């Protein structure tokens, strides 16, 4: 489909969806005004094209080529049978599992949490007209001219809702696991998460995206996080869907005064993956850290788009993204730091490093600083390189074979991003996943 046909297709699916919502039994008969606002914005703005500066290096044509219908939900018994031994990458006692975007109560165990803390299904919260949701949902992730965010906002049905009241500290991470599986044909799901931390609260949230099988599916997810004054939020996203999957994800973070936010974004899967992280430092003294690792082989395409807005004075941001690309994979890093006029004493540092393992691998890196205040400390830099030949010979001279040596050096390169993950978030298991992925792409020299 071309962009016009694709737009028509999605608008028609929305009309079906809206009709279904009108029936009383619909699981998501809520958010009507938000939905209709979002779909009309989508109707006006449509999908982004490569002439759009923010989508310059990523063509979404492969996504538009497939008529993705909203993915069907499955009954719990069927899900358990199909999932079998799939490793969900999260402890059983503390996870919310979403199958094709909807909470599976059978696979989920609400974590034991202090009084007043909410960690559950967004759909359930909306059904009971939770005021905490109403006052935050869809207020931050801008869908005015972002087609995918608009579609998510129009079609959203479920996702995680995490609310931590003032002063409450949650030690254990809350795991949100999103499993896509095929149920009659290529499906799309629209996970929607909302994380709200009131003043002085602390939490960490792990989002993991998985495919049950190697099948064509599309995940278009949005997470909004509100990090209040003096709060601390650690957000981890592990994208390891299959190499046939399409994944577009947006994380929108609003940061209050003296708050701290850390993001770890690990993109390991997908045929085409795009991760947008947008952080607004809206209170003085905020501190934002973005760590990223992307690993792609074969014909995978992974695009990382980050934007940090220094709106208020005395905020700091640190960003480190590393990419390892083999085969004929393509990586993109496009990171913008925008220092607003009022944001004096901003301190921003952005680094992007890439390792290319094959002739056919490619990366576009575009670090950007836009500074509207003179009293700031900002730096950025990016590198693209190959495996160090001296180090490779050193390892081989000790008996380690070429491909194992390459994998080891590549792990060393990726290791410092993984090492920043907190222990409690399952770092050891994530390290194993990263190692597996690196081994898988190290042998692919890109010759086709």
């Amino acid at each position, binding site marked *: 489909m071309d962009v016009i046909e694709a737009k028509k297709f999605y608008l028609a699916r929305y009309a079906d969806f809206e009709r279904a919502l009108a029936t009383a039994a619909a699981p998501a008969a809520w958010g009507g005004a938000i939905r209709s606002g979002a779909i009309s914005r989508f109707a006006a703005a449509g999908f982004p094209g490569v002439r759009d500066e923010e989508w310059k290096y990523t063509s979404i044509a492969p996504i538009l080529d497939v008529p993705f219908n909203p993915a069907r939900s499955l009954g719990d018994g069927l899900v358990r049978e199909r999932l079998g031994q799939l490793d969900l990458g999260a402890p059983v006692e503390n996870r919310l599992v979403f199958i094709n975007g909807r909470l599976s109560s059978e696979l989920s165990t609400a974590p034991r949490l202090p009084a007043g803390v909410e960690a559950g299904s967004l759909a359930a919260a909306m059904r009971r007209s939770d005021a905490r949701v109403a006052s935050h949902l869809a207020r931050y992730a801008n869908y005015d001219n972002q087609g995918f965010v608009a579609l998510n906002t129009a079609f959203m049905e479920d996702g995680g809702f995490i609310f931590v009241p003032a002063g409450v500290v949650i030690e254990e991470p809350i795991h949100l696991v999103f499993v896509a599986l095929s149920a009659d044909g290529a499906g799309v799901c629209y996970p929607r998460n909302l994380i709200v931390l009131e003043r002085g609260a602390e939490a960490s949230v792990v989002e993991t995206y998985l495919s049950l099988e190697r099948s064509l599916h599309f995940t278009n997810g949005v997470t909004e996080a509100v990090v209040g004054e003096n709060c601390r939020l650690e957000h981890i996203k592990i994208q390891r869907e299959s190499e046939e999957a399409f994944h577009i994800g947006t994380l929108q973070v609003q940061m209050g005064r003296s708050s701290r936010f850390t993001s770890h974004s690990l993109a390991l899967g997908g045929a085409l993956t795009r991760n947008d992280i947008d952080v607004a430092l809206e209170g003085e003294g905020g501190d934002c850290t973005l760590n990223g690792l992307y690993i792609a082989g074969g014909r995978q395409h992974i695009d990382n788009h980050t934007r940090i807005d220094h709106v208020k004075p005395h905020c700091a941001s640190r960003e480190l993204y590393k990419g390892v690309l083999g085969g004929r994979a393509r990586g993109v890093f496009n990171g913008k730091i925008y220092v607003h006029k009022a944001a004096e004493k901003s301190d921003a540092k952005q680094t992007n490093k890439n390792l290319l393992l094959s002739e056919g691998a490619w990366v576009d890196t575009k670090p950007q600083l836009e500074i509207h205040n003179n009293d700031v400390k900002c730096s950025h830099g990016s590198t693209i390189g190959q495996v160090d030949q001296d*180090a490779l*010979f*050193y*390892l081989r*001279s000790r*008996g380690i074979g070429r491909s194992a040596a390459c994998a*080891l*050096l590549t*792990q*060393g390169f990726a290791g410092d991003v993984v090492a920043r993950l907190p222990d409690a978030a399952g770092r050891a298991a994530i390290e194993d996943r990263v190692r597996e992925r690196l081994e898988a792409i190290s042998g692919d020299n890109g010759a086709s």
Partner: protein
Amino acid sequence: MLVIKNLHANVAGNEILRGISLTVGAGEVHAVMGPNGSGKSTLANVLAGREGYQVTEGAVLYQGKDLLKMPPEERAREGIFLAFQYPVEIPGVSTTYFLKAALNAVRKHRGLPELDAMDFLGLVKEKMRLVEMDQALMNRPVNEGFSGGEKKRNEILQMAMLDPKLAVLDETDSGLDIDALRIVAAGVNALRGPERAMIVITHYQRLLGYIVPDYVHVLSEGRIVKSGGKELALELEEKGYSWIEEQQPGA
């Protein structure tokens, strides 16, 4: 064990080795000395199989096999060990992980089972004592932030772990103070044995006061121009390399 016949080698189009012949038997320690640029390190790198060193003529037989046909990892597994003049730093790879990967690759090739974590640690501890190495270094990335002496000790530790048949020490004395030199030499001497051969490459006689060779060869302009016993090293120390060069026809 090792037979080098008329070996010629180029680096970046320049002929560096111009017909080296050398035979090394089990249990022997050969010193190769020579001025800067004589081809000492090139010889070491050709033996270890480094890319970018082109052999244009001659042959190298190791235990009866054509060494030059083997990739570097196979040479290592077959028992050749090169102690680097400049050990390489490898960020993000812990020394323990590296040593274990190397040891198990070599053991596998030799038909031995992989060592489990306990046995591995036991072996490392034993070998670290040999070179008086600080155990804290094991958790650090390979050679990263190591002092010059620590790097060279790490080379000898690796040699002790991998138990080679033929060790090539490329200017292991360079950059070492006298204490570090003594420790490194003691480690090397402890590894001498009737089954193991060594080629000790050095610019100075100093190291040979600690590691006493059976044979000394002097390399000049890519050829061995003089061979003798350990006393040759002392004579060189006294008279300088110009003494050898003056003895050459046409010099």
